């Protein structure tokens, strides 16, 4: 059977709750910070944070801190035996000599209690020489404060833009987003009974956490083990950022011989860790007479904060998603990462894709009225046609799915009819207007960085037939472990209850990729299946001699083993397993998967970086109060392609959750830094994420049917990130509603996030136009 083919009675495809759901609801699911209380002599780490955005540390006096009762030690650069760097690019010193943003950790205090550590940190005296700081993206551009390489994505001849029937140009700045995983960063380090450094970390990338802890401690990787039980949310924020915190805990544990717990409080997490990149775009676009995009010229600037972190690949993905679902024969896009004195911005669900797509969607909505077209018509007109290639040269697979989804969703959402109803409503209401919009997504699946597209798994069957699996992916709520259990049970033909999943650990599966890029189920699912099938083929040999058939004719289903066509001859799976043991046949295997056919030239920005594309579309309807600009999301309809879903309840949860998170980014979540570089929205009371009141009043999510994806585990497709971008329809519905306060036909400028205040001012502009 191929990778994508499903056997009879598969466990994949069933709607089942999250594998830890019963633990979640009873408070018994353990997270990294829940483990410290189980240990003796635990120390707590607390940072001393810089009050300046950019300053040289002249002196650091820790004496007073050591006087505080309970304080055991203050960790400084002198305590680093290996490399003083929390990243992989050597631009994130763990203990800086020059602080680069407000909140930058200067040193860490270890104490018997968190309270003592906090008081100790208050007592540390740091003398600074304040340096000039660059806070805004506009200042960075003006002062040419950039980092990393210039990225250029180019095809055709963009000077052709002059020939276009209609040429428009503009600018657009969009805000970033705080991850606000409910569980802040946490790590717990201890030297275990075998002398190895054992780290519990809330990390999406245990291998990289392991590597960085090792290089900070000056150890080889095999001396450090990282385990991630589960995360209380990650969203990309725990892909690169957990490493330094784990390293601090590890230094503390290695120096004191005591376990060290480090958990950021919310303010620390918000002031110390990276966020979604804010972007600024300058663009010029040419359309032909019929509204087809002829040429697009874009300058894209991301605000990377103080260090590179993942800013280059984020920018690359943004550039690779400027096209979204639209063919652009001529394009020239130049991207730069700005260097500013802020937190080092990082991965966040979508990884630049949302920012790239938002640029083109904003352009289309601004230009549609100027072209005399409805935005939905301008969009569908430009969809990729079969055999057309993206600007980076990849022929777009399954182009027919986009128009198929589009027309199906227009139908099921009764889009046209509602448009008429809304027009009538708006005619009769002076202070309340409604708006509706439909937007598409096409999102490339795979890491742009080809090497990351590999995964491993370890599958062990015990003599009683019970199965234990581990794999390289981490669980952050996305349901990966649930899917992997379903994959293993399906591959081995056993009921789900016979399979248990052990937490992600670097000493079980080495050299793992980050759980990121929506690819974890594809990659780890391939590896889990591979391991299961290796063992199954050995078991088939055992069973074949019992049944006197060819091993290829042995079937495994629902915990029974039988010759094909003769289920009556079934023997329990455990019996075959036991027999295999006595015949000295190995009952465990490591599985491996690599995505085939990928290549990417990151300098030329050309190649086939993606295995396939995720398609979807959404329709949103809003109602806006003209007095205040406040609005509500009345209804959302989504149709999303997830291939043949591995786990529909999980996938629908990802779509709904991703959508609301995206809507938060685009409407509500407003990161503000003041002129001195201090984050003024550094707590839950000032940074508002969507609550129940922001949930759409009617929320209908459907999965595209007959969407089998060949070449992917059990015919499924990725789902983690794409739904974030479905939320662009909320923004466009707001724009539609704002236009109704004016004469309905002019181009509406709408900042991002479209907060009630931003909407209010847009209404005032619309009324004046």
């Amino acid at each position: 059977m191929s990778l994508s083919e499903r056997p009879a009675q598969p466990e994949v495809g069933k709607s089942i709750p999250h594998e830890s759901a019963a633990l979640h609801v009873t408070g018994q699911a353990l997270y990294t910070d829940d483990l410290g209380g189980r240990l003796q002599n635990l120390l707590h780490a607390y940072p001393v944070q810089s009050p300046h955005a950019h300053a040289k540390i002249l002196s650091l006096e820790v004496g007073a801190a050591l006087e505080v009762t309970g304080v055991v030690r203050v960790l400084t650069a002198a305590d680093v035996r290996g490399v003083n760097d929390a990243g992989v690019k050597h631009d994130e010193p763990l203990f800086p000599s020059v602080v680069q943003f407000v909140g930058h950790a200067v040193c860490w205090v270890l104490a018997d209690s968190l309270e003592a550590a906090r008081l100790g940190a208050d007592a540390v005296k740091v003398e600074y020489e304040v340096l000039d700081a660059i806070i805004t993206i506009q200042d960075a551009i003006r002062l040419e404060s950039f980092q990393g390489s210039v990225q250029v994505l180019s095809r055709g001849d963009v000077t052709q833009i002059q020939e276009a029937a209609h040429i428009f140009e503009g600018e657009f700045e969009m805000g970033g987003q705080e991850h606000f995983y409910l569980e802040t960063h946490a790590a717990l380090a201890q030297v275990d009974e075998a002398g190895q450094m054992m780290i519990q970390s809330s990390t999406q990338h245990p291998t990289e956490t392991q590597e960085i802890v090792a290089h900070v401690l000056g150890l080889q990787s095999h001396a450090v083990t990282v385990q991630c039980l589960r995360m209380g949310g990650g969203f990309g924020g725990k892909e690169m950022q957990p490493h330094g915190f784990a390293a601090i805990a590890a230094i503390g544990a290695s120096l004191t011989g005591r376990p060290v717990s480090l958990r950021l409080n919310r303010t620390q997490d918000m002031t110390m860790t990276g966020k979604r990149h804010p972007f600024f775009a300058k663009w010029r676009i040419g359309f032909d007479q019929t509204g087809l995009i002829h040429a697009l010229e874009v300058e894209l600037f991301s605000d990377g904060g103080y260090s590179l972190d993942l800013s280059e690949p984020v920018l690359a993905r943004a550039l690779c998603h400027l096209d979204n679902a639209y063919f652009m024969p001529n394009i020239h896009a130049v991207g730069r990462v700005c260097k500013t004195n802020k937190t080092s911005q990082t991965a966040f669900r979508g990884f630049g894709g949302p920012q790239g797509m938002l640029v083109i969607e904003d352009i289309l909505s601004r230009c549609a009225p100027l072209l005399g077209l409805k935005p939905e018509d301008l969009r569908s007109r430009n969809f990729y046609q079969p055999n057309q290639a993206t600007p980076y040269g990849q022929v777009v697979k399954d182009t027919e799915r986009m128009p198929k989804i589009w027309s199906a969703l227009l139908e099921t959402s009764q889009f046209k009819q509602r448009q008429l109803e809304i027009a009538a409503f708006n005619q009769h209401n002076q202070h309340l207007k409604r708006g509706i919009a439909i937007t598409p997504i096409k999102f490339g699946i795979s890491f742009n960085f080809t090497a990351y597209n590999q995964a491993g798994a370890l599958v062990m069957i015990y003599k009683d037939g019970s199965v234990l699996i581990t794999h390289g992916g981490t669980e952050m709520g996305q349901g990966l472990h649930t899917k992997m259990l379903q994959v293993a049970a399906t591959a081995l033909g056993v009921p789900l209850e016979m399979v248990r999943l052990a937490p992600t650990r670097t000493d079980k599966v080495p050299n793992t990729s980050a759980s990121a890029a929506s690819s974890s189920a594809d990659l780890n699912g391939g590896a889990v299946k591979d391991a299961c099938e290796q063992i199954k083929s050995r078991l088939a040999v055992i069973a074949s001699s019992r049944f006197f058939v060819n091993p290829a004719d042995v079937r495994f289903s629902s915990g029974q083993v039988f010759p094909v066509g003769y289920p009556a001859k079934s023997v329990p799976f455990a019996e075959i397993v036991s027999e295999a043991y006595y015949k000295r046949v190995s009952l465990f295997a490591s599985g491996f998967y690599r995505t085939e056919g990928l290549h990417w030239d990151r300098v030329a920005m050309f190649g086939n970086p993606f295995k396939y594309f995720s398609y979807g579309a959404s329709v949103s309807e809003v109602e806006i109060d003209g007095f205040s600009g406040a609005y509500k999301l009345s209804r959302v309809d989504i149709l999303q392609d997830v291939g043949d879903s591995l786990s529909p309840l999980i996938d629908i949860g990802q779509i709904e959750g991703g959508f609301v998170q995206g809507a938060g980014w685009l409407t509500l979540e407003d990161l503000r830094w003041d002129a001195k570089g201090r984050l003024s929205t550094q707590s839950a009371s000032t940074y508002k994420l969507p609550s129940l009141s922001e949930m759409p009043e009617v929320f209908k999510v459907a999965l595209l049917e007959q969407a089998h994806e060949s070449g992917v585990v059990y015919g499924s497709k990725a789902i983690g990130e794409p739904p974030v971008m479905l939320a662009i329809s909320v923004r466009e519905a707001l724009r539609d509603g704002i236009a109704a306060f004016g004469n309905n036909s002019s181009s509406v400028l709408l900042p991002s996030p479209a907060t009630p205040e931003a909407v209010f001012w847009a209404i005032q502009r619309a009324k004046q136009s």
Partner: protein
Amino acid sequence: MSEIQLVVNGKPKIVISPEPHTTLLHWLRDTGLTGCKEGCAEGECGACAVLLRKPHGAGSRLLSINACLVQLAGLHGQEVITAEGLGTPEHLHPVQAAMVATGGSQCGYCTPGFISSMADEYYRPNRQAFDLEALSGNLCRCTGYRPIQEAAFGLGLPDSSDAFFALQNQAAPEAQPVLLEQAGRAYYRPTDLHHALKLLEQHPKAKLVAGGTDWGVEVNLRGSRAETQIAIDHLPELRQVIWQNDVAELGAALSLSELEHLIGNKIPLLHEWIPLFASRLIRNSATLGGNIGTASPIGDSPPILLALEAEVVLVSLAGERIVPLEHYFTGYRQTQKQPNEIIKAIRIPLPLAEHAKFYKIAKRRMDDISSVSVGVALRLESGVVNSIRIGLGGVAATPLRALETEAFLTGQPWNLGTVQAAAKIMANSGTPLDDHRASAAYRKAMLEQMLLKFFAEVRP
């Protein structure tokens, strides 16, 4: 007495000499009940929500509260139930089973808190339907809330054999007096008002703690510590609602949830406003006295109470005095209240103006702090403004009245022309600032717009 006793998940616990600022959250986690999570430590996310059994008529109510904002010492004698105590993976509570079935948990970190808030609503006496507002103080970053709503709406009513339901028929354990002195810091819960005032006289710098929802944030986020804390939340003298012909007196230490229940629709403006105040998690602890006591310029109640012409009853050992609310605030977080005084009650003159509204401008509809808030109470007589009272929040260092606007409108016909002119005047009230919540220009615009909106809603 330096022992704090409480019942947690049915088991009695004794805590010897806790540091007086120790929160319920940290203590629970230290005892191994790690289902109680810290998500924000300021009562915004609800990940720490647990159930506290509080008096309700002759019986009790399981009320969801933020464990991060409550001090352990304040719970002496009381009973707490956490997600761990409601059910186990083998025997899920109906609320837990519903959340499992609908996919209401993804990462699971916020889930125990949601379970607590859902259980609060599940056991609400005489509940007809599930009021989603019960979950307004719980944030989930993963699900988008739809499956949580499905779980909530799918809940039936508690079985008669339900042990927690039965528990609600029994009187709540009384909060016990506390006299905790530990490491140079003290936490007192006096038994009556006189005792409280005497303590206050001895400790003029003492922190008065009622709901503690503002003080808890100071403790957690800004590291504030008080030498002496005096808990006044259970003082019977501060927990009454008294209706007289010409005035309603609202006890300062009643929680807003209790107040909501006790005043019903008799003061429509408060009835409308209370559900907009923070979240039910907060309202289960927070008090009206506290909202005035903190004297925040962006507190929600002052603009309304200003519109309602409210007065503050201050009490000290010397007796009571009544201060009109409009004179109460003297500067940024400063008031007329003397160190030896306690806010006893808020008086609202009756009868009420026939037209009254409250407008809260905020980014988020539920559980957000307003950038601007406006309370308006209007009395019309044959289409002419007999009197109008407008309270404003968020536009100055203190809540204030829009005196010029009021003066302009009084005696004028209530029509679009005069209201538009008045709205222009109102836009210039106060000295609004630019901050992360809103620009000064927007705040100004909102002052104007809200009067226009009031007119659109209250046409003669």
